[in-house]
C-alpha cells in the first residue's frame, strides 16, 4: 500500500534525488532497520520522526555510508543517488560523502580556525584553484549559513570558541562548502537553546530550496515547522510516510496518531 502511494506520486513529480529500496540494517544480531522504502526529492525537507531507538538515525547514516565504519553493521537493500547505487563497489565513498553532506547532533567544529573549518572540505576535494577562490567559497558558505555577519571579523578565531548555535551553523556552513546535493541532519537542534534553534530552522527553510534535506528530530513541532514530508518509524519499521501537514492533522495509522499525540514514545 505504502509503495503504491510512492509510485503514484513519482509519476506526478520530478525524479527523486535519492531512492531507498527495501533497506535492512543489522548491528550484529539486532535488526535495527526493517525494510524501508523511501524517495527524497531535491527541493524538499523530509523529517524522520519516531521514538528513540526506532532506527531513524541508522537509516540516515546509510544515506552517506557513515555506517561503514561500524564493524558489525550490515546493510541490505539499495540506496540510489541519482539512480546510482551508493553501495556499489564502483562508488568512491569519499566522493559520495562530498555529495551527501552531514550535520551532527552535537556541534562538532574542528578545533581549528573558523576559516579552516569551512575551507577544509573544499581543500581536500580540490574545489578551489587558488586562495581567492577559497576565500570566496568560505564567504559564500558562511553567508548561506547566516553566520557571515557574526564572524567576518574573526575568521582566524578557533571555531570551538563560538556559542553552541553559532557552532552548529558553522557546521552547516562547513557541510555546504563542498556543494553537496543532499544534506543529512541528525537532530541538529537537540543541544541548542530555543533562539539558536529558531535560527537553524530558518536556515533549513532557506536551504531547502537548493538541497534535498533529511532531518532526524525528536521534536514534533520542529518536524511540523521545517519539513514538507514526514516519515514515522517505530521499532525499525517505517509506519507511515506522507505530507507533513496531512501527517500531523490526519494520520492514517493508529501508531502514528499515538506517537504524535504523545501516547507512545
Amino acid at each position, binding site marked *: 500500500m505504502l509503495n503504491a502511494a510512492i509510485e503514484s506520486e513519482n509519476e506526478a513529480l520530478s525524479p527523486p534525488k535519492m531512492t531507498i529500496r527495501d533497506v535492512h540494517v543489522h548491528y550484529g544480531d539486532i535488526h535495527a532497520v526493517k525494510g524501508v522504502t523511501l524517495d527524497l526529492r531535491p527541493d524538499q525537507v523530509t523529517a524522520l520522526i519516531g521514538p528513540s531507538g526506532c532506527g531513524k538515525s541508522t537509516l540516515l547514516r546509510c544515506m552517506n555510508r*557513515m555506517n561503514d565504519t561500524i564493524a558489525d553493521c550490515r546493510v541490505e537493500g539499495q540506496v540510489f543517488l541519482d539512480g546510482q547505487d551508493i553501495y556499489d563497489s564502483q562508488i568512491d565513498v569519499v566522493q559520495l560523502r562530498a555529495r551527501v553532506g552531514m550535520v*551532527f547532533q552535537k556541534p562538532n567544529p574542528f578545533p581549528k580556525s573558523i576559516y579552516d573549518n569551512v575551507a577544509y572540505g573544499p581543500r581536500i576535494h580540490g574545489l578551489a584553484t587558488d586562495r581567492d577562490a577559497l576565500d570566496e567559497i568560505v564567504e559564500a558558505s558562511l553567508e548561506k549559513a547566516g553566520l557571515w555577519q557574526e564572524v567576518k571579523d574573526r575568521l582566524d578565531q578557533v571555531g570551538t570558541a563560538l556559542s553552541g548555535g553559532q557552532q552548529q551553523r558553522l557546521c552547516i556552513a562547513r557541510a555546504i562548502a563542498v556543494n553537496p546535493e543532499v544534506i543529512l541532519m541528525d537532530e541538529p537542534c537537540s543541544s541548542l537553546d530555543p533562539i539558536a534553534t529558531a535560527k537553524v530552522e530558518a536556515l533549513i527553510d532557506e536551504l531547502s530550496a537548493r538541497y534535498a534535506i533529511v532531518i532526524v528530530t525528536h521534536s514534533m513541532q520542529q518536524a511540523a515547522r521545517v519539513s514538507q514530508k514526514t516519515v514515522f518509524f517505530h521499532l525499525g519499521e517505517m509506519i507511515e510516510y506522507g505530507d507533513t501537514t496531512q501527517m500531523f492533522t490526519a494520520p492514517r495509522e493508529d501508531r502514528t496518531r499515538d506517537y504524535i499525540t504523545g501516547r507512545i514514545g
Partner: protein
Amino acid sequence: MTDNTRNILDQQVDWHSPKVRARLRRRHRTDFLFRAIGFSAVAAAGLFLVFLLGNIIKNGAPGFLQTSIEVDVAFDPSLLPDPTLERAEFAAAMARVDLQRLLRQSLLDHFPEVSGRADTIRLTRMLSSGARAQLRDILVRNPAVVGTTGKVWLLASDEVDQVVKGNVDISLPEQNRKLKNKELVWLQRFESEGRVSLSFHSRFITAGDSREPELVGVWGAIVGSGLTLLVTLLTAFPIGVASAIYLEEFAPKNRFTDIVEVNINNLAAVPSIVFGLLGLAFFLGVMGMARSAPIVGGLTLALLTLPTIIISARAAIAAVPPSIRDAARGLGASSMQVAFHHVVPLAMPGILTGTIIGMARALGESAPLLMIGMVAFIVDVPGGVNDPATVLPVQIFLWADSPERAFIEKTSAAIMVLLFFLIAMNGMAIWLRQRFERKW
C-alpha cells in the same frame, strides 16, 4: 508493588533519633579517618623524597668542587724545548718533555727539607697526575713562560682533596689513613700560605671518565646518553606512533589484533635486562654491530620504549572525540586524511608526553646496556653513534663500584646530573601537555 512496601515508604523518617545521629557521627569519623590516612601517606612519600634528594645533594654537591694547590713552578729552560720554535714544533717537542721532573723540582724548591726517594714521591703525589697535563697546556698555549717562574694552580690528588673537604678523620691512627702525617704537615703549610683553594670544578662537567677521581667528568656519559637517546627516539617514535595509529584507526578489531594488544601490554612489563639479552643476541650476535656503541644501546632501548610509546599514543588517539572523526568523514575525508589531518594533531600532545616519559625511562636505564657492553671503561668522549660510549646511569654504576673514597661524592654528583636531565624532560612533558592541550 505490595501494600506492605508502600507502607514502609509512607512512614515518616525521624532524622533526629539517636540511631540516626550515631550513624551520622560514625560517617563523619570514617570520613575524617580516611582523610588523615590519605594525608599521612602523601606526607610520608614527600618525606622520603626530601630525604632522598637531600642525601644525594649533601653527598653530591662537594663533587662539583675540587681542591687546587698553588705551586711556584720554575719553567726550567734546560728541561723544556726552545720557546722560539714554531708553535707546532714546540707542541711536538713538549710531548717528549718529562714534566714530572719539572714539577718535582718546583715542589722540592718549595720544601727544601724534603729529601729521599720515598718522601719525594709522596710530595709529588700530593698533586694529581692531571697536574702534568695542566702544565703542558700552559706551556703549549704560551711558550714565552719558558725560563720564568710562575704561580700555577694545580689540581690536588683525590686524597688531599678528601682531607680538605673534611671527609677524612685525621685523628685516626696513621696506618689507617691514606694521607700520612708528613703529607698533612705539608698540606698545612700550603694552607697556611693560602695556597689551597676549593673551587668549582668545570672539568667534572666537560671531561670524560678517568681512573683518578679528581680527573673524572660526566661529559662523556652525557654525550653517550644523548647519542643513545637520539637513536632510541629516531627508531621508537616513528615505529611506535605508526603502530598506534594503525592499531587505533585502521586495524580491524579481531582476534589477531586482540593478541597483539595483549602482547604489547605484556611487553611493557618485561624486565629491562631481558631486552638487553635480546639486543645482545640480535644486534651483536646476528647483525654483528659494534660493541659498547650508542647505536646498539639506542636500538636496545628503543625495544624497551616501544611498548610505552605505543600504549600512550593509543590512549591519546582514543581520547580524541569520535565527533571529530565523524565531522571529517562526513565531509568526505578518507581514513588517511581523518587520521593525519585531525586525529594525530589533536593527539600529539599526549603522544609527545608519552614519548618523553618513555625517553626519560630509557635515560635512567642501565641493566640492558650492561648486556651489550656499554659498561666498558671509556675515557674519550664519543664522537658518533658507532664510537664506544657509556651512559649516565652506567657511569654512576661504575663509579659507585670504585674503591676510592672520592668516588662517593662523584657518584652522587653524577646522580644529580642525571636527575637534572630527568626533571628537565618531565618538565618538558608537563609544559607540552599544558601548552597544546585542547578543550572540547
